[in-house]
């Protein structure tokens, strides 16, 4: 089967930093065993170039493709797919070597190391690609085409609307009792308890009031939203009158504008970690400040923040706010603002730019704080999807798009990931609804490929894989040995790594393949 490897060397990523000798890389490739064609192109991620590469692959009868130097994260999977289809190549025989991320950037201060390391990486990647097996995926029909949306916020409702416009049956699970106007079934006062099964056939256990119900669905959209966290930080604790920013938004929404002087204060992370929530709060604070100054010019508005970064269109808000006379005070994290307890309603803050200590009299203090939904952790555990350190649901790889999670058929949108404006949340809801609907409406789905497999003879049924797998893929079969449910397997390799009996291997990441790759990288001495 192993006919030959086509190595494509892309100039745009090689010469970007000016540290790589592309022709030398090409010579390394053409001298390597198993390589039947080496092509140097200007830009591999260009449709026209892809067609040229395909012609070359067909002419040289290559059955494997290696693209270097390419950032695996940024290469378009669509291009790989087009390539696979046109050149009739197995998708598991195509790889990219990330020389930029792993060689050029880390060694930019010591350029002498770049070329030899890049060559070693290329050699080891060629050894690896020559050893890859052409794996196949399996197809299965879905049992249902229902789409379940968790959360009936702006994003969730949008997702359900899009999915039901697709002609699918949608169910929204909402924890509050609020009245929701959305298509399909809405289950208020309900929450997700657990999930079994896999894409196309997820079986969810839902708590509705006091009862438990089972729901079958093909795809799930997580739109669990965010949470307005109550008092945070010493100042807010000290000041009984401080209110969270969303109260101000509510007051503005109801047409009640605060008078006198107001301060909007940030609530930075105590560990100094910058989170997307802070950027969002800054933009929300800008919106409120602009609105108040426009409608009620006599109200003094101070924004007291550690960081002021107006991203994208928020720059206009910042400009407008400063024109309207909103006062910005940036402070140093080492000199946090204090409340003057003697006079009660004064905030003492040192302005970072002027290095001047100000004493601001105010009537109301709002604190800008938003946190991810605390229920996210339970949802992530139930659906076995990852959660970020700031408590939001994490999306999968960038190749799958911004609303996909690592698990097939589960999508995430809106503030469930991190705080964002209603408009963006709604757009994401639309995207997630569409992705989920397309997935569910297909009626069948593909799985397998680079998944784990057990060699029964070596298995001692010690249950280590069963206990360790985050996706519940391994189970003990009728023969009393471990087996892998490949629908559940995400190809993470944890079981293969931990198996005490070395009975499990991950296809295309076997010990032999990894050792040969490492040995080639170290120059054969391993």
């Amino acid at each position: 089967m192993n006919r030959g490897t086509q190595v494509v060397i892309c100039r745009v990523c090689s010469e970007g930093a000016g540290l790589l000798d592309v022709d030398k890389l090409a010579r390394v490739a053409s001298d390597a065993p198993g390589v039947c064609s080496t092509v140097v192109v200007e830009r591999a991620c260009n449709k026209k170039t892809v067609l040229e590469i395909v012609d070359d692959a067909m002419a040289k009868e290559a059955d494997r493709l290696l693209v270097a130097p390419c950032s695996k994260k940024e290469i378009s999977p669509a291009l790989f797919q087009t390539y696979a289809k046109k050149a009739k190549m197995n998708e598991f025989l195509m790889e990219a070597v990330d020389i930029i991320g792993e060689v050029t950037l880390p060694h930019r201060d010591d350029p002498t190391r770049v070329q030899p390391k890049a060559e070693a990486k290329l050699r080891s990647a060629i050894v690896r690609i020559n050893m890859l097996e052409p794996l196949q995926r399996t197809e299965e029909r879905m049992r249902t085409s229902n789409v379940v949306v968790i959360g009936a916020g702006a994003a969730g409702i949008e997702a359900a609307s899009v999915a039901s416009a697709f002609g699918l049956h949608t169910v929204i699970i909402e924890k509050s009792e609020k009245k929701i106007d959305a298509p399909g079934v809405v289950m208020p006062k309900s929450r997700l308890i657990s999930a079994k099964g896999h894409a196309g056939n997820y079986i969810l256990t839902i708590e509705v009031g006091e009862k438990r119900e089972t729901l079958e669905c093909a795809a799930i959209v997580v739109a669990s939203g965010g949470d307005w966290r109550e008092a945070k930080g010493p100042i807010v604790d000290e000041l009984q009158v401080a209110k969270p920013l969303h109260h101000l938004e509510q007051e503005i929404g109801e047409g009640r504008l605060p008078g006198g002087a107001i301060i909007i204060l940030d609530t930075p992370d105590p560990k100094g970690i910058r989170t997307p929530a802070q950027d969002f709060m800054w933009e929300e604070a800008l919106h409120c400040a602009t609105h108040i100054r426009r409608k009620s010019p006599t109200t003094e508005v101070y924004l007291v923040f550690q960081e002021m970064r107006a991203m994208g269109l928020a720059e206009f808000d910042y400009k407008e706010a400063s024109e309207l006379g909103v006062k910005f005070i940036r402070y140093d994290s080492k000199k946090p603002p204090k409340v003057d307890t003697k006079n009660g309603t004064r905030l003492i803050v040192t302005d970072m730019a002027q290095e001047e200590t100000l004493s601001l009299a105010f009537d109301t203090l709002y604190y800008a704080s938003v946190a991810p939904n605390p229920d996210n952790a339970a949802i992530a555990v139930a659906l076995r999807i990852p959660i970020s350190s700031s408590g939001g649901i994490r999306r999968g790889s960038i190749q799958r798009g911004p609303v996909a999670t690592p698990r097939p058929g589960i999508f995430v949108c809106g503030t469930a990931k991190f705080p964002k404006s209603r408009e963006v949340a709604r757009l994401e809801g639309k995207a997630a609804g569409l992705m989920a609907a397309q997935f569910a409406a297909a009626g069948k789905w593909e799985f397998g490929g680079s998944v784990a497999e057990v060699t029964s003879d070596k298995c001692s049924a010690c249950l280590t894989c069963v206990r360790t797998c985050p996706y519940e893929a391994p189970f003990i079969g009728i023969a009393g040995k471990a087996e892998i449910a490949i629908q559940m397997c995400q190809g993470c390799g944890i079981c293969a790594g931990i198996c005490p009996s070395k009975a499990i291997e991950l296809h295309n990441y076997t010990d032999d393949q990894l050792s040969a790759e490492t040995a080639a990288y170290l120059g054969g001495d391993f």
Partner: protein
Amino acid sequence: MIVAERKPLGEIAEMIAPYEKVCVIGCRSCVAICLAGGEKEVNMLVSAMGLLNRRTGRTQNLDGLVLERQCEKEWVKEVEDRILESDVILSMSCSLGAQTIGDMYPEKIVVPGLNTAIFGVPEEQGVWSEKCLGCGDCIIHTTGGICPIARCAKSMLNGPCGGSSDGHCEVNLELDCAWYAIHERLKLQGRLELMDMVRPPKEWNTSHSGGRRVIVREEARLTSHQKRATEESQ
């Protein structure tokens, strides 16, 4: 199962330092499952020793292999050639495996790669706890199914002692008090009267205190005739 832990790499390196040909032998049974001496750990040790030797510039021939059960002579016999070829055997099994090889090839030097620790229960992935000391005279039917010999630091038969506080042991506050656990279990089962039972001193001669124990099951033994036949067939 038997739970063991690998000795520190430095200690292992020191033990095998004088020898040129080292045969590292693991075991696929208990010590594989407790992630101490299976195929994976043998390969890792061979690699680690190879790296160490490379750094110090010495050559040492390291041969790694794994047996189904190192405590059984038949499995050991399978790799006799490789054992005889080597200068030292580094056993990555529990001490039973190491001693089996040592008894079979008394002229060979066998060094232990693992510290054999406990009869343990896997409480969760990566955690094993001691629950039996092998005293040879089980009494857990009178103690709510919890062994005070293994689980009480003082192996008390009539507990708890005065050092039990809030369910913890005075020997180490991170340990649970076995007798507190026994009381809770008996309460749950409605058998608290067993707490009042006075357990007389135990017959410790069934334990290791009576000297090395050998279990003989006469009905399972082969007759001298059968033995001869088996030996001949081999």
